[in-house]
């Protein structure tokens, strides 16, 4: 395996949907075991960047890309790299909670079963540990066989986090994971994200500056597809180098 400094490195990445250029020559390295926030106004390419990291954009027929994304030193778009392996190692949590319409247990065991874990005891352990990590175990341990869509929105989102953790990925991508939730559920999930960075590298898309401040260590500020600033969150928020960043932080653009 080639040497690598960080789990995920992006170099000179540009992407297009059809003729429209979304990301413009982005280079950044996401530090391990930290939370990196990707901030920016709507339509600046935050989600596109995130979805390029686990190749979810491949599903869009008009998607085109230049530049490199490396996971553990290997080009994820390179010939012979398996997108399924990649996605097993890079979990994702979506904007809206999207539990599968099956039981809570089946939601968690889906991923491990895909990747060849079929032993009942092992699956049982995975269910418990994933739900515990997502701070949901105590709430649902007695109703693991109930349908997941009957949970509340906040619980559903934590279940989705547990589902992502079930295949034990070193990296977790989160695409505005709390924007569809009420403030209390949102706060719980923010807490959870901070908790999880001990064991995982987390990349969080958000359009909420306060949230970036509360949970992230580094921040990337994207504006119209350009990476304007990438540094420690504290530094960016206290003394932005670029006036566009300042305008966003102070709420003049957003």
């Amino acid at each position, binding site marked *: 395996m080639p040497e690598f400094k960080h789990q995920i490195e992006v170099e000179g990445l540009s992407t297009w949907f059809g003729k429209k250029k979304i990301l413009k020559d982005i280079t950044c390295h996401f530090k391990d075991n930290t939370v990196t926030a990707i901030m920016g106004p709507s339509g600046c390419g935050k989600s596109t960047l995130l979805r390029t990291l686990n190749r979810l954009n491949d599903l869009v027929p008009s998607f085109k890309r230049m530049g490199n994304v490396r996971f553990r030193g290997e080009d994820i778009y390179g010939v012979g790299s398996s997108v399924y392996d990649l996605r*097993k190692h890079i979990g994702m949590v*979506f904007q809206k909670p999207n539990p599968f*319409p*099956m039981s809570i247990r089946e939601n968690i065991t*889906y991923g491990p079963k895909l990747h060849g874990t079929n032993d009942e005891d092992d699956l049982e352990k995975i269910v418990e540990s994933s739900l515990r990590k997502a701070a949901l175990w105590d709430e649902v341990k007695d109703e693991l066989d109930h349908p997941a*869509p009957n949970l509340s929105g906040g619980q559903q989102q934590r279940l989705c986090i547990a589902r992502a953790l079930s*295949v034990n990925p070193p990296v977790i991508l989160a695409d505005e994971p709390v924007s569809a939730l009420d403030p209390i559920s949102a706060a719980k999930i923010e807490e959870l994200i901070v908790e999880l960075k001990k064991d995982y590298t987390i990349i969080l898309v958000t359009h909420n500056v306060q949230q970036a401040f509360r949970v992230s260590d580094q921040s990337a500020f994207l504006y119209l597809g350009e990476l304007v600033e990438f540094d420690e969150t504290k530094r960016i928020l206290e003394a932005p180098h670029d006036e566009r960043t300042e305008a966003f932080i102070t709420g003049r653009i957003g």
Partner: protein
Amino acid sequence: MSNKNELITADDETSDSDFISRLKRPFIDFNNADRSGRVDILGRLGLFIPAVASTLIIVLVLAFLWVESATIFGDPSGGIGIIINPTWDPNRDMYGIAVFIVGSLMCTGLAIGIAVPLGIGGAIFLSEFCPMRLRQPIKMIVEMMAAIPSIVYGLWAFLVLVPVVKNNIAPIFGSDSNGLSLLAGGIILAIMLLPTVVTISNDALQTVPRSLREASLALGATQSETSRKIVLSAALPGVGAAVVLSLGRAVGETMAVLMVTGNSLQIPYSLFDPTYVMTSIITNQLGYAFVFPLWRSALFAVGLILLIMSICFTLTAKLFIKWGMKTRGYI
């Protein structure tokens, strides 16, 4: 406004859980549903009549069939035993209808067995794997298949399918069938069911939100795993509805089946034996039977059993769909 609320709560209190008031409940609710204007009464009446009519029709049809078939069920040579009696010989006043029941069940089972897997496969292809540009044309052609009259399917089956069964399929299995067989009936029925299964299943599959597919893919599932384990599973209640509809059509289909199954009064022991289904016997013999009360009544009994079978299928399937919706958290 407050007056209206009081009225409704007053009604609520009087509704005990006893049977009569539970029967009356819908009517009280209906009465309270919209008190805003006198003009609406006319409109509500206008909607109430079709609603009652459509529910009454099934009761009336059942009652009519019951009255007509009462003769045979009450006669010493008939009775309820005709359901399990396989001898149908009107000349000797023997009206066993077991042959037709078995024929219908086997034909329907065969057709469903062919059409459902094929149709669901087609629907999955259309909704998950088909290139965007091809989807609409294919859907349109499949929908057009549903518009072909069943007699035309029958003609085609008689001239093409039956010889194929006779010359190409039966010899493989060492049968000297003349082609008019259970198999031919099952296949043509399956072809007729396909458009229903494909279009309705496809609609059900397409209503599965994209976010579920993405969640599955993001866990490292292949597209095939995603469509089988997530999309199909999530759409199962809708796919079940497709099966219900096609079941109803399969048991009730007459013309095409009549033309290719050989209409022989025997219980088929192989796929290549001819068979006689319930709809065919009614169509074939009603003309002669009309002046013989027992014979005629026996045919109506076949119709009654057919309707009851069809209702049972539908109810079972509905229960299955409801169970599916429950375990998926849709209701």
